[in-house]
């Protein structure tokens, strides 16, 4: 364990995240973990980590970090204009830093969440099998809270010799700028009338300011559902819930584990990276797709990540 980073500017909401604690769902605890698993995995693989190692998830504005010990890092996901010692630095590629260097972000250009991986993996408190930060329970990561000025972040022992320059080419990254999410019709799609169903797949929705790691409230045409109250059932990230207000909620990594609102559709796994990069105010559209197509999209992402380990 080496202390590698000192926080001198925490950013809006920077948390330690890994791949979450899915088994805790049975106790009502959200699964958590990195919102954009593709970017999280890519950052880890670029610096030679296992893809389940913890990274820093930086939301909307990035942190300012002072490098305390030589380390290899990679930044992926949203483009917040990465700087090293004030000069523009490349993302999606391994960069070698020395003690005394400064890593910062000049401002958001696109996307909502950037991921910073450090060779050896970021270390944090482990809670229920995961270092992911759960703010509600105040557990995991940096003592269950976002980073604050003065925090010191440690990294584990890197299993590999540092290789500067490994990266993921642009054409292998998700198309974050295309704000169309692919959906598979859900268990309660028949509760939507023909007009509402057409509106779901033809309208633009806007991500409301009242959106966070639990879920996104989407503003758009009211989608009325019919039918009697449902018994509560287990939920998954990507589920598009439709409360009686008619404004859909897209469930994200820290979602409620169970609920009784109709789930009219589910965002496919390959589209969740794009969903994670939506910011409040962004417009989003939905396209209905088949499970077969969804699995092909998934395979494309898997191959892109596998190219980093070969």
């Amino acid at each position: 364990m080496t202390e590698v980073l000192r926080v001198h500017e925490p950013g809006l909401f920077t948390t330690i995240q890994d791949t979450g604690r899915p088994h805790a769902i049975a106790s009502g605890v959200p699964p958590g973990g990195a919102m954009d698993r593709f970017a999280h995995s890519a950052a880890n693989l670029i610096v030679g980590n296992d893809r389940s190692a913890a990274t820093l998830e930086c939301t909307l504005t990035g942190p300012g970090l002072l490098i305390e010990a030589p380390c290899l890092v990679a930044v992926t996901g949203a483009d917040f204009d990465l700087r090293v010692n004030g000069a523009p630095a490349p993302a999606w590629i391994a960069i070698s830093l020395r003690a005394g260097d400064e890593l910062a972000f000049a401002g958001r250009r696109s996307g909502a969440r950037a991921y910073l991986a450090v060779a050896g993996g970021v270390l944090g408190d482990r809670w229920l099998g995961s270092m992911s930060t759960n703010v509600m329970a105040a557990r995991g990561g940096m003592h269950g809270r976002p980073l604050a000025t003065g925090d010191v972040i440690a990294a584990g022992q890197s299993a590999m010799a540092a290789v500067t320059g490994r990266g993921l080419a642009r054409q292998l990254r998700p198309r974050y700028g295309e704000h169309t999410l692919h959906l598979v019709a859900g268990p309660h799609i028949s509760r939507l009338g023909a007009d509402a169903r057409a509106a779901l797949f033809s309208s633009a929705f806007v991500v409301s300011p009242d959106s966070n790691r639990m879920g996104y409230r989407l503003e758009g045409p009211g989608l009325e559902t019919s039918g009697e109250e449902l018994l509560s059932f287990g939920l998954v990230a990507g589920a598009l819930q439709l409360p009686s207000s008619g404004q859909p909620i897209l469930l994200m990594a820290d979602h409620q584990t169970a609920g009784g609102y109709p789930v009219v559709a589910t965002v496919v796994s390959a589209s969740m990276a794009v969903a994670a990069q939506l910011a409040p105010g962004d417009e989003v559209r939905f396209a209905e797709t088949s499970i077969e197509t969804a699995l092909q999209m998934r395979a494309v992402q898997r191959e892109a990540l596998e190219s980093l380990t070969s």
Partner: protein
Amino acid sequence: MPPQRSTVKVRIHPLGDTALLAELGTRLDTAVNTRSIALASALKKRRDVRQAVAGAASVTVQFDPDQVTHVALAAAIRRLASKRPPMEEPGRLHRIPVVYDGPDLQAVASALGLSQQKVVEIHSRPIYRAFLIGFVPGWAYLGPLPDELVLPRRPDPRRQVPAGSVAIAGHQTGIYPLTSPGGWHLIGRTSVRLFLPDSDPPSLFRAGDRVKFFPIAE
């Protein structure tokens, strides 16, 4: 004698490309919930299943699409659901002390045409079942609530319900583990902690457990 097979109609729906929802029923029913919990634990043993969680009358299954197709998994779920569930061991019994002085107790009593004393008596009489753990950490949907106490949810949910509040809505009752928004009728409070963040599992109640409330003065 041939093995006994019951006819359980299971409706299976995709939840995207990596999860399925298997619905075993549409009513709050102990037998259906027992089957749901048994099906979830049978599914959890499969290598291609990442997570299986029982709902009140359903199972939500997350699977690895590199190991199994949703069609093959759906067939396996139907096969497992048609088996007679193993004899259920009675869930652990929790006795929960309640001070029945909730802010809605009087309104509940008058809406039901009962005395407050009678509401307390009816609420603390049954042994409830924890049908499902979820919503927020440590929350359990307990039921069924006796018909005499059935009321729809409050039309205006509270922004903040204090942790430990004992509440009713529809055919269910529950205890708020954390201070959170809520639309149920608050009839009492307990000092028992339901969310135990430093234990694993971190929930006092587990699906299938039994819960008995008893009134205390303070």
